[in-house]
């Protein structure tokens, strides 16, 4: 079954540990990871994506996608609120290339490019359902035949797992044609 998962942990170190552990589960064939990334929400509510990419444009694109995904993981309320309220933000700040699917959390990615504080607040509202202030999370798209491997790994790092079937997100808020939001291999995260 294809799922999107968010594993919320106490700090960045735990998140990095979880990211690498996730890919080790892939190596072992217990799950298949299609992409994963690490995010952090600071004490003021702003989100950052830990990236290895030094290209500002790519960083924004990754952030938009992850923002949308976080909104979707938050459930229908979070995603719907984001889709309605962030559409204007997306149109004004990102351009027409970004679809409505990215709107749910689009402002999250823009933190990397320093947009207005009101947009940060909106992003914080969206993702606060999943990632509390001061916490970090591993976000991933995985195929898993059973949930135990990821659940056990999360337990070992003291994480809380949020999981939604990919099919339920695709139906309304997520555009599978978009790509590049989650790193398709293990990497050493660094906050831009």
């Amino acid at each position: 079954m294809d799922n999107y998962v968010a594993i919320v942990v106490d700090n960045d170190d735990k998140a990095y540990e979880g990211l690498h552990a996730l890919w080790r589960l892939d190596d072992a064939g217990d799950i298949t990871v299609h992409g994963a990334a690490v995010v952090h929400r600071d004490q003021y509510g702003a989100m950052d994506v830990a990236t290895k990419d030094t290209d500002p444009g790519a960083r924004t694109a990754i952030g938009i996608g992850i923002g949308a995904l976080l909104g979707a993981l938050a459930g229908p309320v979070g995603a719907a609120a984001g889709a309605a309220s962030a559409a204007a933000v997306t149109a004004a700040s990102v351009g027409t290339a970004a679809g409505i699917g990215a709107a749910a959390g689009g402002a999250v990615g823009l933190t990397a490019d320093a947009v207005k504080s009101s947009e940060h607040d909106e992003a914080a509202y969206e993702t606060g359902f999943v990632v509390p202030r001061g916490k970090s999370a591993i976000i991933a798209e995985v195929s898993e035949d059973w949930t135990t491997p990821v659940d056990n790994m999360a337990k070992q790092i003291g994480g809380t797992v949020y999981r939604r079937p990919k099919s339920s997100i695709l139906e309304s808020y997520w555009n599978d044609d978009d790509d590049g939001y989650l790193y398709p291999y293990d990497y050493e995260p660094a906050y831009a």
Partner: protein
Amino acid sequence: MNDMKGALEQARRDAQALHKKAQDATAKKHADIRANVEKLADEALKLQAALKVLKLSQHADAQQHLNNAVNALDDAAKNAKAIKTANERDLGILRAALRLRTAIALKQLSRALAAKRTSVKGRAPQFV
């Protein structure tokens, strides 16, 4: 791990390497991008040829994903070749397209691998 599963996992590792190279090559200055893309095109076509052989031994679900990956790699190779002679205006579009195509190819390979792993029965109970 049987040989066929290993071959698919190796193909995904090759696609991951290609994706990294595409990311790195297209993050440079325009002159450097043009200098690096020809090799990328060759590597994309080489991987594409390997996938065409590999898909013959896969079941239908994985085959479909591999077909998609083959098509994406074909597009990626075309994008890479076009970059070589593109004007400044088109370079940005082609650069983004190259990144996207290699990412799609990789994702499709990843899905083929997931399908293959799921088809291996008796590994784990089905809880989801």
